[in-house]
């Protein structure tokens, strides 16, 4: 019980921080009034139409990435797995960079192109990893993800090299991840879409406990391993694809949060998955607040913040793990 209070507290604090701070430099009192719709219309708009959806989207994306990371680590039985390992980020990046390079207009052009790229990569990796008689080989899955990702990255490099300077800048910033495109509409679409894979993954919690032991022991403890692996891979990939589409490629949340939760509260997925969601969401909401304010009025890519904060934390965790 105590851990859920701690996690809920962290989530509320991160959300409050994200709404309270920003390049506009509004006082906390002003923000609080604007939140309930009182005060200067511009301040109300900044708080209610920019900050609240942005912070909420960052929270949901962070939660989705952390939860996916936890699932994939158990699926491929590799503590280094993260949501992007499976070639998704390469595919999404290629889609987005192509859309930017071709100068496609509209708020949804880049996210849709990224989603198409991610889905293509998912299909390709899945096709490669299904070996004889419909068995999904998770070792091949890992390797396929790496090669598809590498191939897409090479194409991204080619597109970037041929892009004019202005588009090169937008493309690079997109690749590093951020929530500049956040809106109530994006939040609503993402929340509606993400809830389905999130529920599917959570419902698989006990099967994930078994699968972490290895496929053979899992089977003899009652897991239907083959359909389970397919369901997990597809749900996790589709969730990540949506996260990438709305926010670009944000590293480290999906890798380190599950490990932090394991160290704190152990490896039972019934706890691990929701706790990772809450902690990942809190981290990303706070990181986005930092990204917006550290060099205001310039915005850092939030992926840079999560990496700069995440790498040292992860290094410490790895040391603890090793001893």
């Amino acid at each position, binding site marked *: 019980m105590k851990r859920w209070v701690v996690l809920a507290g962290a989530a509320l604090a991160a959300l409050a921080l994200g709404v309270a701070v920003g390049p506009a430099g509004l006082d906390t009192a002003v923000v609080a009034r604007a939140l309930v719709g009182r005060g200067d219309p511009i301040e109300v708009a900044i708080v209610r139409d920019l900050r609240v959806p942005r912070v909420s989207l960052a929270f949901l994306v962070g939660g989705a990435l952390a939860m996916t990371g936890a699932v994939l680590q*158990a699926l491929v039985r590799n*503590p280094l797995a993260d949501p992007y390992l499976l070639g998704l980020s390469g595919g999404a990046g290629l889609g987005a960079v192509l859309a930017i390079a071709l100068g496609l207009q509209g708020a949804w052009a880049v996210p849709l192109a990224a989603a198409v790229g991610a889905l293509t990569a998912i299909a390709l990796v899945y096709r490669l990893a299904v070996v004889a008689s419909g068995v999904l080989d998770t070792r091949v899955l890992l390797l396929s993800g790496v090669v598809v990702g590498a191939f897409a990255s090479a194409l991204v490099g080619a597109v970037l090299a041929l892009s004019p300077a202005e588009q090169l800048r937008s493309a690079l910033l997109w690749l590093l991840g951020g929530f500049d495109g956040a809106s109530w509409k994006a939040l609503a679409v993402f929340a509606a879409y993400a809830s389905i894979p999130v529920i599917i993954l959570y419902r698989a919690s*006990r*099967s994930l406990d078994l699968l972490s032991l290895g496929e053979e022991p899992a089977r*003899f403890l009652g897991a*239907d391993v083959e359909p389970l692996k397919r369901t997990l891979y597809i749900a996790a990939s589709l969730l990540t694809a949506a996260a990438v589409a709305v926010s670009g490629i944000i590293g480290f949340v999906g890798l380190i949060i599950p490990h932090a939760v394991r160290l704190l509260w152990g490896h*039972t997925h019934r706890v691990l998955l929701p706790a990772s969601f809450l902690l990942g969401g809190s981290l990303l909401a706070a990181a986005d607040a930092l990204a917006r304010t550290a060099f205001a009025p310039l915005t850092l890519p939030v992926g840079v913040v999560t990496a700069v904060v995440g790498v040292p934390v992860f290094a410490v965790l790895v040391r603890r793990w090793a001893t």
Partner: protein
Amino acid sequence: MGDVIFRAEQLTYRYPGVAEPAVCDVDFHVAEGELVGIIGPNGSGKTTLLRLLLGVLKPDGGRATAFDRPASEWRRPQFARMVGVVVQREEPVFPLRVRQAVMLGRYPHAGAFGALTARDAAIVKTALADADALHLAERWTATLSAGEWQRVRLARALAQEPRVLVLDEPTANLDIRHEMEVFELAATFVGERGLTGVLVTHHVNLATRYFDRVVIMNRGRVAAAGPPATALTRAVLETVFEWPVDAHPWRGIPQFVPLRKNEIT
């Protein structure tokens, strides 16, 4: 003896891309309440035979039935409530406490969302005590010795409250004491609690003393089967293992000594 638990009839299986069948025309059964040993050289098809009987592989020829039904047709959770299996190798990647690891044996009963109750905790505790592993309950699985880990996995299988225990080379890297403990535990569960036991082992000298029946596999086929006294003979062992042995009765039970090259006369 009671009902037939596992039955193989003309059972044949080929791994894809391998010409020689791994299991070929095997007839064999395990009856309720027996402790049965599967013996044979490396690569003779012992584990494949088990995997067929446990419904993980589908036969290419013949039939593999478990509880009077084709083994591969059982739903896995249902099967896991009847049969507890300790596989040869299992290396945990993520840290678990022993108590949590054994609780996984309750999952087939609890399902995806059923509550794990005080009753489940009590069953886990009993299983740990039965496997002589209760003192390990709060340890991390990664810190266990090979013998301790084996007993914990045995406890997990017991927590499934199975009718049948299947152990695949459970004593492969254990010293004498830990090996004997596993055999003693298996014999106790079968002899005193009415479970059925199937054990794959290389240990012919323990086989003669523990098992009700043995089946000796060689190149995918049954080389001999029956009570150890008749099935485990010097001639059979020398043919199957391709090494000379001497047989010495010990308290009336044959024990086999592999010979050194300079001891062959």
